[in-house]
């Protein structure tokens, strides 16, 4: 009875620990089982999972709790079913059910990431090398979609800064650009001309270096399901979800501010920064409130959206003195 049941409660910090510990326990067991299996077989590639099945079907990705300030919200994580069954990944179609339905064919092994541009160490990274680059952390972030809905997602990964430091940007590097795989054979959504492919997103270098900016390899303690951007993606929790590029194949350090895919498609609606901001409306809808998926009952009022998606304390200083209505 979705209509009547009140699903909106604010769990106390104590309560929110319970669900985590439940899946952490199972993850522990699974990781030990997987370690045994790994002796005999190479690590299997990830896959699109049936959202209804819940976690437990993809290889585990063990992680320790993140110590980064603000990285572990106490809010209740959104159900695995919703996180993996309702999202945007236009390379697989524009409907939010498309990614789960159509990402099964995405090959995430072998996978390489090209690092190029204004860096001392250009080169091609294998996904397995990236997986070992730094210690995996669990981070529970709020995710606010530009469309007005939000989730809370337990990601697994490490700060993008770990990689940036290793490749050593030159003095010319001001921005970091991310490119998503664009392979029409694996991604049926590329047939439509919704966007110019490949999908391009970018951050200012200081944004990319911020410890909250996550290079994610997993969620809910397992490797990323294909539909959520396997095998690696960006997660920038204080920006609208589309800034967090999925299935990244190319990272380029550049001097000039790149034009992102959404800026190119609709310059009047999407800016470069796209920081979550309740005061700057999208031309076609208000950004003042949001609907938390799976939490707010149907007839419950939408909850207010927080500046920088609630990460103002951590990231506000990156934009000190900037007119956020102009640089939206």
């Amino acid at each position, binding site marked *: 009875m*979705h209509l009547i049941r009140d699903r909106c409660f604010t769990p106390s910090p104590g309560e929110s620990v319970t669900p985590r510990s439940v899946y952490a326990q199972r993850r522990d067991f699974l990781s030990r089982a997987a370690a045994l299996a790994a002796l005999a077989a190479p690590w299997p590639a990830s896959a699109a999972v049936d959202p209804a099945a819940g976690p437990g079907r993809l290889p585990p990705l063990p992680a320790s709790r993140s110590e980064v300030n603000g990285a572990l919200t106490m809010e209740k994580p959104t159900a695995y079913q919703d996180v993996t069954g309702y999202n945007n990944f236009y390379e697989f179609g524009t409907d939010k059910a498309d990614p789960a339905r159509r990402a099964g064919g995405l090959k995430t092994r072998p996978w390489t990431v090209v690092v190029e541009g204004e860096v001392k160490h250009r080169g091609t990274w294998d996904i397995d090398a990236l997986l070992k680059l730094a210690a995996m952390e669990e981070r529970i972030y709020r995710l606010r979609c530009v469309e007005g*809905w939000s989730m809370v997602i337990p990601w697994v990964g490490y700060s993008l800064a770990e990689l940036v430091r290793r490749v050593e940007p030159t003095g010319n590097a001001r921005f970091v650009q991310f490119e998503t795989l664009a392979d029409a054979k694996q991604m049926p959504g590329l047939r439509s*001309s*919704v966007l110019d492919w490949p999908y391009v997103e970018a951050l200012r270098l200081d944004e990319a270096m911020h410890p909250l900016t996550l290079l994610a390899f997993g969620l809910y303690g397992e490797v990323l399901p294909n539909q959520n951007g396997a095998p690696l993606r960006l997660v920038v929790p204080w920006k609208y979800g589309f800034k967090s590029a999925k299935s990244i194949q190319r990272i380029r350090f550049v001097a000039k501010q790149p034009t992102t895919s959404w800026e190119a498609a609709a310059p009047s609606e999407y800016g470069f920064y796209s920081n979550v901001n309740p005061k700057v409306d*999208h031309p*076609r809808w208000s950004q003042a409130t949001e*609907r938390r*998926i799976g939490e707010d009952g149907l*007839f419950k009022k939408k909850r207010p959206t927080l500046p920088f998606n609630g990460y103002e304390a951590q990231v506000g200083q990156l934009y000190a003195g900037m007119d956020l209505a102009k640089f939206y």
Partner: protein
Amino acid sequence: MNALLSHRATKPLLFVLALLPLAQLVYRALTDSLGANPAEALSRGSGDWVLRFLCLTLAVTPARQWTGWNALARLRRMLGLYAFFYGVLHFLCYAWLDMGFVPADIVRDIPKRPFVLAGFAALMLMLPLAATSFNRAIKAMGGLRWRRLHRLVYLIVVLALLHFYWMRAGKHDFAEVGVYAAIVAVLLGWRIYAAWRARASATARRDAAHAKQPVALHVTARARPSPPSAGT
């Protein structure tokens, strides 16, 4: 076919059929099977059916003339009223699920967003049509005036399309909009063509009449085209 359409049970059957989309939405809401974002599913579901019923309503007259199933005309009023009914539900979804039924917020939101404004204008224009949909209203207004008023439906369907187009514009996703636009283009294009043909044949009749009449009448002869048949 005409006999079937004129059957006593046809209207009640259509009445029930047209309620099925609502029944399905309510059922899915109660069983929690509207997906991750039930409010959005209800808004979009009800909105889709406004467009569908508008198209069905506008298809009655062309279909009647193509097929000769004149009894289809009996069903047009109900189809139009269902378009209005789903329009009201669609607005309630917006007002309640999106705006939390706060009148001040709604009043502020509507003019601020062109796409909401287009949809709202379409609904407002449907009000007088729904209000004059019963036989006595037609009689009171007179057939010609009633028909003229009800030509607002052309504007309504264009506004509804615009509303849908703007809604999807953010996603650059025009496939579905294109389907509805094509249907509406055919339905409205047919009317333009029919009006043009009626005018052409009126002119032909007039010219034929002139040929027999003295030249002096020529100045006053800009005969008005015959008004389109009742089923516009």
